[in-house]
């Protein structure tokens, strides 16, 4: 389990992280989402032990990660922009990883070579961005990590390769109990693979739950009220819009309780719809004054 407790980081006069709290259960696929500049990459660089925290701590199974090779051995990290030695091919990088990570698995490295059709010997600098990502996945997964941390992992990959990679990752999660922490702006994709989600904003945790809990706790209601009818009292309305007589509400709360309250108001018509992760993201952040602005140009 990864625990991030009260993590703080300051760059000059800018507070990148301001008491961030995260808990990533073992074996979870955890989506870390947030607006641009929220602190996702900074958080990841702390979780991988790259940055030294200004405050708080990052623990992997109760052990600090920073300057702890024992913890770092269990973690593989694929950043947004993949790094490789100048002139190095996949084979050269594998030789390096082999010497540094005790868990490097030759058999897996060989088998993954079949999944990713890349020239082992060719310098990685000649690869496209997507090919470099594939190479990074091949190398990272050969380390047999207990924790895989991904920052914008599928950027540059074609749809087939995306599906291929997620399939490989999820099979590792299922078979080996690997924990995956993934930061991405592609919420549609995260919704398909994540079982836990943490939304962060301005260096703080806004909400952190399992995806099902998150979806259970927010409901979209469409209703039509009779002439002179009023919205029922006691609803926690996050957003309200009207199209003709149809009122669309985004409400926080349990679906059953909301349905009961709405029904009690005697609407001509009402329907409860589940929210997508993207909608949850937008409406949660709306409460933090981060919403789509109506700007006329």
């Amino acid at each position, binding site marked *: 389990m990864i625990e991030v407790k009260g993590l703080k980081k300051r*760059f000059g006069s800018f507070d990148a992280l301001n008491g961030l709290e995260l808990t990533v259960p073992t074996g979870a696929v955890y989506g870390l989402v947030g607006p641009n500049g929220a602190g996702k990459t900074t958080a990841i*660089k702390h979780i*991988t*032990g*790259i*940055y*030294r925290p200004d405050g708080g701590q990052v623990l992997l199974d109760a052990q600090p990660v920073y*300057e702890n*090779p*024992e*913890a*770092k*051995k269990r*973690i593989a*990290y694929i*950043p947004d*922009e*993949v*790094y490789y*030695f*100048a*002139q*190095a091919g996949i084979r050269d990088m594998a*030789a*390096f990883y*082999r*010497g*540094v*990570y*005790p868990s490097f698995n030759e058999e897996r490295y060989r088998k993954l070579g079949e999944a990713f059709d890349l020239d082992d010997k060719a310098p990685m600098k000649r690869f496209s961005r997507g090919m470099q990502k594939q190479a990074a996945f091949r190398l990272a997964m050969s380390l047999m990590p207990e924790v895989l941390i991904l920052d914008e992992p599928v950027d540059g990959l074609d749809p087939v390769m995306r599906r291929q990679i997620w399939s490989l990752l999820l099979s590792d999660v299922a078979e080996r109990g690997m924990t995956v922490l993934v930061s991405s702006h592609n919420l549609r994709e995260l919704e398909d693979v994540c079982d836990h989600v943490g939304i962060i904003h301005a260096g703080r945790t806004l909400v952190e739950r399992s995806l099902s809990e998150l979806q259970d706790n927010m409901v979209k209601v469409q209703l039509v009220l009779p002439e002179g009818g009023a919205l029922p009292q006691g609803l926690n309305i996050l957003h309200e819009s009207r199209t003709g007589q149809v009122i669309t509400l985004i409400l926080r709360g349990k679906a059953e309780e909301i349905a009961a309250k709405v029904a009690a108001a005697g609407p001509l018509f009402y329907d409860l719809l589940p929210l997508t992760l993207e909608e949850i993201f937008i409406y949660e952040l709306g409460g933090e004054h981060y919403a789509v602005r109506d700007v006329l140009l």
Partner: protein
Amino acid sequence: MRCGMSFFNATVYKSSLKRFWPVWAGLTLILILLLPLPVLNAWSPSRAEGVILGVGSFGAVVLAFGFSAVAAMTVYGWMYNARSTGFTAALPLRREGMFLSCALAGYTMLALPGVIAALLTMLSGAAAALAAQWLLKYLLLSLLFFGFASLCAFLTGTLWVLPVVYGLLNVAVVVLWLLIANVLTNLLPGYAGEVPQAAYILSPVVRVMMFQWDGSPFPDWAGLLGYAAFGLICAGLALLLAKKRRMESATDTVAVSWLKPVFRWVFSVGFALCFSNLLYLLILDDEPYLVVPMTAFLLLGAFLGWVIAEMLVRKSYKVGSSLKTFPILALLIILLTVGCAKGGFGYSARIPAPERVKSAQIEVGGYSCVTDDPSEIPGIQTLHRELAAAQPGQMGGRDVYIEYELTSGGALRRRYSLAGLSEEGQEELRQMVERELAEGLEVILSDNNRTFNFYATLYEGEEYYNFDLSEEQGRKLLRDGVLPDWRAGTLRLVSGWAFGPVSASEEPETFYFLNYDAWFRGDGRYDADFRYRMYDQFQVTPEAKNTWELLQKYRRETGKESWG
């Protein structure tokens, strides 16, 4: 592949050597061209030794210095961009392990080519012992320079800054001292402007190069060992910085947060010194003691330096808010310049009590008078007082140096302008110097271990001709001509040389210039311990009767006259 030691990782070490093979392969090639190849081609053992002591030794310094920076840039190169920093810092390696693996790889890149070149030289059979000494020197120098480069590598987060910082810090103390000395020479009356030996010692590459220029390539093993130890200390400091380094400092000009204000101040002061010296030379033609312009140049230079330093630290052109502490530096500069102009807080006028003086020396135009006679010291101090009391308008022109050796073991050295002395004072100084010179002439005349070269030039109006004298003639001329005339006050040191230029109107129509050099008999080398000048020149007019007559006689006897 994996090493059990947590402070060393063989994969990182080997990977660094493998990836950056052109560095050590190139160095190996250069060293082979520099050492074993010329030694093999040498036609004699002494010629082979000459190669090692000459180009080989010089090359060891230059290559160890230059390639240390290159090696540091390669093995620590991962620290200078966010991607490579992230990759490396996420590896399951202790920072000590990463540092040591990289540092050893860097040192191997330097040492291995040296070992190969030395072994090949030894195999050639010529000068094997000297080649071993060369190797030891090269390895020690590599330790010094690579340790120093390692420390510099951890001070910055930008690759190109590393060689700049490394190069500057290698010469910084001497250069800064020279710049300060030049500013003080133009601000502080009495300041003698000498660079202390410690400044050279603290500037490793300058010091090591000086060994070469001194013609002693393997001079001071204790010194070299000391420098190698200094290199190790630098590497130790680099390790401490490596442990504390923040990976987000990649691309920062200054990677150590507490060094940022230090950098701002040092850069600003250094820039002020360079800038003011340059402007003073270009605009004011090095005219001394112009306090206001010098202060203005220093302030302008400091301001520019401050702004540039801030831009480098912030990586931004917007530095307005950081200028609020600049007035402190400006105030310090004004206080120092005004303080210097007002006598440097007692520095200019400081004269030691006579009982504290072991010996005193006054020197002008290369001629000096040294005395440890307590009855003569007050005479020098009287001149010292007059010189120290000179006003700015009396400064410039020929310098007068006064140096006291104190009973406490220390020394006090001052420099003033001859123009600060009254006519009487100048006459007093002339007599002191001439007395000393006359005594010196008597001493060397009585010393048969010296040989003299004499030649004279007769000027008659616009024409002149030269003739040589034999040593016997020369000795007789000094003994029977120069010294008696000198005592009679009819012969003097050429005034234009020692005491300021003589205007053309003061020059006599007809006169001789008599020149002599004093040499050791036998080996032809200058006597380093010789207390008196070995080269002197006299202007002889008919008034100096004895000298004039002898010169006229010898001119006729030589019979070889070359007119110009």
